[in-house]
Every structure is written in C-alpha cells, then in structure tokens.
C-alpha cells in the first residue's frame, strides 16, 4: 500500500548518506592535499595543463587542415574555386598565427638577453580562475621555482609563481583579487589593490599629478611595469583621488610567458 512512500524514504536516506560520504571524502581529500604539500592539486593541474595544451594543438590542426572550410565549399556552386580560396585563407590564417608565435617568441628571446629565465607555454584559460591564477606548462623539472617573476613578451610583470609541481606551475596574477602590491605611480609610492581581470585600484592624495596613461611600476617586481592608469576619479568631496589601473597585457592573447629565474 505504502510502497511509493517507503521507496521514497529509503531513497532519500540513501541520497543523504551518499552526500555525507562525499562531503567527508572531499574534506579528507583537502586534508591529505594540505599535509602532502599539494599532491592532489598537482595531479588535477597536470591533467588540466595537458588537456589544455592538447586542445590547443587539436584546434591548430583543425584550423590548418581545412576540414570546416571544405564543408563550406561543398555547399557552394563553385566548389573548386571556393576550396582554393578557403585553402589560401587558411594558409593566411595559419601564417598569421605562426607569425604571431614567432613574434612572441622573438620578444621572449630578446627578454632572455636581459633577464635570466625560461619561456613557458600558458596551459589554461585566463577567465576560469576565481582566484586570479593561471597555469603554465612547466614546473620544477624545467627549472621553474616558487616566487619567480612572470613577464609578458614586452617585459610587463603579469604575476608570480605561487605554486609549482613537477611539470606545471600556478601563476598568481599581479592584479589578482585581494592582492596588495606596493608600487610607484608617477614617482609616488602607492598601495595597489588587485580586483581581478587585470584591474586594480589605488588612492592618491589630491594634488598629485596623475593622468590616464601614466605607468605604474613595482620596485618589488624588479621595477617592471605592472599597469597603466585608466581613469582618475577626482571627487573633491573625498579625501583622496581614486585611481583605476589596468594591465597593459591582453591576457587572452598570451600563449607564452617568460619566467624569470631568481638571482643566486
């Protein structure tokens, strides 16, 4: 008679038990991870980096073999001509892509003449992290060490290595949420508060000459540029001017970064 009711109750109990078990499992997982210095997260991040790099390679292969453009050409009346045009366009795109990589690597090579370090590939999405971090595809085995400075191709500081495993490293961006960094803005020392997404804010007293486009540098990061003033809020009713700073680096376009080796 009460089959439906008893089934639901039993099912609810099973669901709650499963939930409890998973909760305990996750807590134990984190404890093990913390005690072992991040062994669990190293596995997760290695997998993420491998998948991201493989996905990028697959994307480039698809772009270069013309699979999608061939389909577009089949739909048209002039198959042969359109396929040829598509092929040429692909070659242009591929050439542009390779040119971009060559340019980036050339910049890195130039950087390597002034700084000692290694060029490493970016191995994760920039938008996915809620903590303002991203992964690079090199770790301890490749010579990356903790607290190393990470630069873009043109020498802008974009972060520091905050965690490193055998073959991957985690970079915490200069403007990650909650990060406070001492910087120089037009010669004036300021505390820059990271807001994530390549943005930060700081406050300077009225009277200091600040304008959009001014460069922000960080002595603690080797004096490298960390941002550019985007907007200055000069509300006379507040005690200080609110300065909005943005990173000059377009994170989404970064394929390689330069990890500076600590000076010995």
């Amino acid at each position: 008679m009460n089959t439906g009711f008893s089934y639901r109750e039993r099912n609810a109990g099973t669901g709650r038990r499963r939930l409890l078990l998973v909760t305990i499992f996750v807590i134990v997982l984190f404890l093990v991870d913390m005690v072992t210095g991040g062994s669990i997260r190293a596995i997760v991040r290695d997998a993420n980096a491998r998948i991201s790099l493989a996905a990028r390679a697959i994307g480039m292969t698809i772009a270069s073999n013309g699979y999608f453009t061939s389909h577009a050409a089949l739909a048209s009346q002039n198959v042969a001509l359109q396929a040829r045009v598509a092929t040429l366009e692909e070659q242009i795109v591929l050439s542009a892509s390779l040119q971009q990589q060559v340019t980036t690597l050339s910049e890195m090579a130039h950087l390597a003449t002034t700084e000692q370090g290694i060029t490493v590939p970016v191995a994760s999405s920039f938008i996915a992290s809620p903590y303002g971090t991203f992964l690079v595809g090199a770790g301890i085995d490749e010579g990356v060490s903790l607290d190393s400075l990470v630069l873009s191709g043109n020498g802008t500081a974009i972060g520091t290595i905050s965690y490193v495993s055998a073959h991957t490293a985690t970079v915490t961006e200069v403007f990650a949420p909650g990060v406070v960094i001492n910087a120089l803005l037009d010669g004036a020392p300021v505390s820059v508060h990271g807001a994530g997404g390549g943005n930060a804010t700081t406050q300077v007293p009225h009277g200091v000459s600040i304008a959009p486009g001014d460069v922000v540098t960080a002595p603690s990061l080797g004096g490298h540029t960390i941002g550019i003033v985007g907007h200055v809020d000069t509300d006379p009713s507040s005690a200080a001017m609110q300065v909005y700073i943005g990173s000059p680096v377009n994170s989404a376009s970064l394929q390689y970064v330069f990890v500076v080796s600590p000076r010995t």
Partner: protein
Amino acid sequence: MHRYIRGAIAVLGVISVFVFPVWVGIVCIIVLALRYRAWEAILIGALIDLTWLPSAGIIHPLPLFTILSIIIVWGLEPLRAQFLLK
C-alpha cells in the same frame, strides 16, 4: 530524464571549471543543489579549488568554493526535503 538533466548539468559544471568563468560553475552548483541531493555539486566546488587555489597552505588560502558548495548543498537540504523530494 531527470538523471540525464542532472548528469548534463554536472558535466557542464566540471567543464566550466577549466574553461568558463566561475559564475557558470556556481550556477551549476546552485541548480544541482536546489533540485537534487547532488554530491556532484560538492565535487565541482572542490575541483574549482584544487585547480585554481594560488598555493597549498594549511589555513590560507581557504578553499572557498568547496566550503560554499558544502554549505549550499547541506543548507538547501530542508528546502528540498520539504518541497521537492517528497
């Protein structure tokens, strides 16, 4: 049908950890926790932290998304029990 929907949301949540902005993962956690006793929601939260936490400290930084997902999943238990599961 419900199993497929639940599975699809969970898979989207896991993929979002690596590819999409974090709010996608949070939406998946909330939707799963609202409708199901979803242990997957806790795993998504843990995966976010294991993948993106800056360092491996004991106390700092706190695995916020794991804590958040546990709170959401267990906090919504009375609501689910009252309105959805029975």
